[in-house]
C-alpha cells in the first residue's frame, strides 16, 4: 500500500459569467500515489487546465475537496494558498516563466526567498539542482541568453529547490524543439526514479507515453484512466 499524496473527491468547478454558467469540471474523483508519474490528456476545453490550476493551488474548486499531502487545500485564503504553492508544489510551465534579464541561479533562488530559506544556504541548494539538470556552466547566464531547452531545465531546477510534494508540469515541452524535448523528458524520468511525484499536462500522446499513468479528460469528466506498461 503506497501513500496517497493527492486525494480529490467530488470536485467540481463552475465559472459564472453573468447568467451563463460554464461547468469546467464536474464530480472529479482522483487519487495519486506518492512516487507516481501521471499524465493528464484531453482536447482543449476538456477542463485539463482548470484541473491543473486547482491541483496547483492557483485556483479553488466550487465544490468538493482536495487534500494535498495530508492538507485540505480547497478552502484556504490567498496567502495560505501562496504558502502551499511555495512549500508543496514545484511548477514547470509551458512558457518557462523565468524572470527576464536575471541570471539562471537567481531564478532558481527565487522560491527559496519566499520560503524563508536561510540566505547562506540558498546558493548551495540552487547550485546542486542546476548541476542536476546539467547547467553548472550556465549558472550566471541571463535567461534570455539560454535556449528554450536550457530555460526549461532552469525552470525544473527552480521547481525542485523547495523539495515539493509534487511537481506540476503544464505542457513542459510545448515550446521546445523535439531533440531538446527528449532531454526534458529524460530529466522527468530520472526525477521520478528518485521518488518525485510528477503530474504532467500534455496533449501529445508520445509525451504522455513517458508517464506511468495516463488520465484522459473530456467535457470536465475523467473519460479514461489507464496505466502504461
Amino acid at each position, binding site marked *: 500500500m503506497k501513500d496517497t499524496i493527492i486525494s480529490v473527491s467530488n470536485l467540481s468547478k463552475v465559472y459564472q459569467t453573468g447568467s451563463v454558467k460554464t461547468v469546467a469540471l464536474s464530480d472529479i474523483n482522483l487519487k495519486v500515489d506518492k512516487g507516481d508519474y501521471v499524465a493528464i490528456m484531453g482536447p482543449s476545453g476538456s477542463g485539463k487546465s482548470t484541473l491543473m490550476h486547482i491541483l496547483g493551488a492557483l485556483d479553488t474548486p466550487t465544490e468538493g475537496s482536495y487534500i494535498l499531502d495530508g492538507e485540505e487545500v480547497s478552502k484556504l485564503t490567498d*496567502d495560505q494558498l*501562496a504558502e502551499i504553492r511555495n512549500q508543496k508544489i514545484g*511548477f514547470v510551465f509551458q512558457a518557462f516563466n523565468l524572470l527576464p534579464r536575471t541570471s539562471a541561479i537567481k531564478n532558481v533562488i527565487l522560491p527559496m526567498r519566499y520560503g524563508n530559506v536561510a540566505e547562506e544556504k540558498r546558493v548551495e541548494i540552487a547550485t546542486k539542482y542546476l548541476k542536476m539538470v546539467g547547467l553548472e556552466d550556465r549558472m550566471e547566464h541571463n535567461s534570455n541568453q539560454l535556449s528554450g531547452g536550457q530555460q526549461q531545465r532552469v525552470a525544473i531546477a527552480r521547481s525542485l529547490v523547495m523539495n515539493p510534494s509534487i511537481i506540476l508540469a503544464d505542457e513542459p515541452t510545448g515550446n521546445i524543439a523535439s531533440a531538446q524535448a527528449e532531454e526534458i523528458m529524460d530529466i522527468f524520468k530520472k526525477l521520478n526514479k528518485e521518488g518525485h511525484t510528477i503530474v504532467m499536462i500534455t496533449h501529445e500522446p508520445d509525451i504522455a507515453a513517458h508517464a506511468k499513468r495516463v488520465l484522459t479528460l473530456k467535457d470536465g469528466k475523467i473519460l479514461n484512466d489507464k496505466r502504461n506498461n
Partner: protein
Amino acid sequence: MTKEIIETIKESVGTLTLNKLRTGLAMLGIVIGIGSVIALLSLGQATQTQIQNQIQSLGANLLTVSPGAQSSGGVRGAAGGATTLTNADAVAIKTDPTITAIKNVSPEVSNRAQVATGQNNSNVQVVGATSAYFTVHKVDIDQGSLITDADDTNLRKVAVLGPQVVSDLFGAGSTPVGQSVRISGQTFIVVGTTVSKGGTGFFNQDNVVYVPLSTAQKQLFGQDYLSSISLEANNSDVMTQAQNQVGYLLLARHKLSDPTQADFTILSQADILNTATAATGVFTTLLAGIAAISLLVGGIGIMNIMLVTVTERIREIGLRKALGAKKRTIINQFLAEAVILTFIGGLIGIVLGIIISFVISRVANTLFVVSPTSVFLAILVSGGIGIVFGWYPAKRASDLQPIEALRYE
C-alpha cells in the same frame, strides 16, 4: 525582519537598474520638485534674513516718532505729511524727568533735493541731523568729521556725504573733504564721508547727504517742524516702557487726552521687524506652495510610471505569486521600488537645490542660506511621496490573480 527589508531593497535596486532610462525619467519629477522646494525656501529665507539684517542695521533699540495720526480711528493723515512734531518736542523728550528709558534723542528733517558739483548732479535724500543722529543710527565716519553741535547752533553750511553720493558726484575712491557741493542751489562745504551700510532700493542708507538740522530747517527747507524724531532706548528690555513714556509726554504736550486721537506715531524697530518678517514669511510660504505643486506633479509621475510597470510585469507578478509570494511580499516589493525612486530622486534634488540657491546667491549678491529643516523635510516628503503614490500601483499588483497574470500576454 531587517534581513527581509534589506533583501527587498536589494531586489528593488536590481529591478530599477534594469531599466535605467525609465528609472531616470521617473526620478526627474521628484528631483525637480525637491530641488525647487530647497532652492525656493533658501531664497525666501535669504530674503528674510537680509531684510532683518538691514532693519537691525538702522540702529539698535530704535524708536521712531513720526508726525501723523495713529492708524486706528476714522480718517488717517498721511504719515510724515503732518507738521505736529517740533524741535521743542525733541528737547522735551531729552530733558523731561518722566523719560527714563531713553538714552539718545535725534530730531531729524528729511527731504529729497538736488545735489551738484561742477560736473555732476544727483537727486538724493538730504537729512538735517544733529550729532546724536550718528549715534542713534550707528552711522560711522569714514573721512573727515561728523556734524557737530557747534555746526548746528551756528547754522553752518557743512555736509557729510554718504558713500553712494561720493561715488556719484566725485567718483569712487575720491577724497571730497574740503570741496564744495551745491544743495538746492546753496553751497555747502564737505566735512566728512560715512562708511557704507549697504542696502538697496528703498533701504539704501548710502545715498544720503547729512547737513546740520538748523541749517536744513532754516536755510534749505524753510520749515520749523521735524520729519521724525529717532530715539535710542537704554536697552531692548525697556522698549515698551520707552514707547509709553514718550507717548504720554507727547500727548500731554499736544494737549490730547485720548490716545486714539494722537497726532504722531511711535514705531519701534521690533514693530518694523515684525511687519517685514510677516511680509517675507508670506512670500516664503508662497514660494514653498509653488514648489509643493511641482512635487505633487512629480509624485503623480511616479505613480504613472509605477502603474505602467505593474501592467508590464503582470506575468512576472503572476509567476512570483505562483512560486509562493504573498500579497504583502508583492506590495512591499513595489512600494520599495517607489520609495527608493523618490528617495534617491529627493537626495539628488537636495543637491540640485543647494547648487541652485548657491548660484542665485552669487548672481543676485544675496545671502546663501540653506536651512537644515528644509533639507530634513525634503527627505521626509520624498519618502512619503513614494509611499503615498506607490501604494495604489503596489496594491493593484498584489491583487492580481496568479492564473490570470500567468496567462496574460
